[in-house]
């Protein structure tokens, strides 16, 4: 579809700019933090990481709140110590620190390697978006988590990841009107076909749809798409 670029409707562009905006913010933050970490040689103390990350999170949540529920950095093994991780993550308007007891744990690496939002960007070196899923570790809410690898100059190993949580209810508040303008069955879906927000009353966030027969599809950010069933597929009353 060569004409697709020209034909992208305004509501789709609005969704694309919100998601792409979050991804670009993370990418820039990952570069800045990577440079700051490169200036510190050798192993880095947790307090030094806090000192770099907390002001950035504060700025991010103040600027983009309430879009962003929380944000932070999680160290890959080797940055603060061998086989150790470190979490510097804050959430909410009060900048509440999350999961910090894990920083004293001998098994902190294992804890984060279980989580898709950490494991995938660390193993692949590619930015990732996880969810929608219930985040029992931090927000206890239904969220999408965007994560981006952080590189240190002169180091083959990744230093860690930066990430941010966006509540699904926030995405609905921002996107539902545009999706309704697109049609009665327009949905923002993940790469797995998991519905995030939909204009269709018969689709709830979390439901799975088949992407093969989804009708029109527009890519949104790295891992999402807006699918809009054509009139033939639209649910009839």
């Amino acid at each position, binding site marked *: 579809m060569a004409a697709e670029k020209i034909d992208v409707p305004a509501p789709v562009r609005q969704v694309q700019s919100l998601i792409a905006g979050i991804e670009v913010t993370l990418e820039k933050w990952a570069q800045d933090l990577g440079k700051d970490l490169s200036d510190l040689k050798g192993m880095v103390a947790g307090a030094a990481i806090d000192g770099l990350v907390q002001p950035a999170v504060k700025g991010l949540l103040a600027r983009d709140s309430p879009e962003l529920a929380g944000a932070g950095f999680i160290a890959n093994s080797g940055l603060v110590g061998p086989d150790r991780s470190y979490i510097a993550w804050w959430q909410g308007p009060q900048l509440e620190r999350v999961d*910090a*007891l894990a920083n*004293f744990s*001998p098994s*902190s690496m294992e*804890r984060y390697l279980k989580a898709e939002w950490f494991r995938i960007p660390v193993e692949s070196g590619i930015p990732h978006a996880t969810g929608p899923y219930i985040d029992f570790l931090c927000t206890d809410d*239904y969220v999408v988590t965007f994560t981006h690898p952080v590189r240190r100059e002169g180091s083959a190993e990744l230093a860690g990841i930066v990430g941010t949580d966006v509540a699904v209810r926030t995405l609905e508040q921002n996107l539902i009107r545009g999706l309704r303008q697109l049609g009665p069955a327009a949905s923002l879906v993940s790469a797995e076909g*998991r519905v995030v927000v939909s204009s269709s009353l018969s689709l709830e966030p979390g439901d799975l749809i088949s992407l093969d027969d989804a009708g029109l599809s527009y890519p949104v950010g790295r891992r999402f798409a807006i699918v809009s069933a054509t009139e033939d597929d639209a649910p009839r009353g």
Partner: protein
Amino acid sequence: MTQQAASASRGLAAVFSPLRSAGLADQVVERIEQAVETGLLVSGQRLPSEVELAAALGVSPVTAREALSSLRARGLITTTRGRNGGSFVAEDFLPSTRGALQQLQALTRLQINDLGLHYSIITVACAGIAARRADATELAILRTYLRPSQETLLSWRLVDSEFLLELAAIARSARLGRELVRLQADLGTLTLLPYTDKAFREASVGMRAAVADAIEARNSALAETTTKELVHALIHWLLDEHSR
């Protein structure tokens, strides 16, 4: 008018119930206990200092000191002075079956039944929705909780609670998930007890497998029935033990 009084919501009456200070130090103690029980902190390891602990949990150093001295008084941590001093997680910190039995005997049959009813309603609801929403990755994760990789009592208890939490995660209801976390905190170490029984352990593996199979088959009704059986088995074991 009496009519008006009678129509007032009973839920609103709770607004006027006495206010209790939640006890911030108690919450810190609870967090540390959970961290040790789930293996995040381990026996013998050094605990963070008062100042570090306060910063990590967002409480004042006074509250952190209060929490540490409460743990010390109960023998859950030991403190040594000097250059290499500090607070250490005690070797016998982990919840014991003795403590769990005391907790069980302190409850009435009525309370156990009511707790079981609540636990069953929440988990069964999660299972029903999970059968509609599970993808292949999630099913694979669910199946890692059928049987623990180690034969310790704590790992059995961990798979028991993690399996049900995973059902809530797959169902994707934040409310049901939070409710389940709260309920598991209420159950405390009670769920340790059935896993002292070898027959129960093996039976529980089969029951969890049946739930996973029903979810894979996208059969909501069967997922609900099998989850109900799993939770009922646990509660009935506790009731049997209680009457012994």
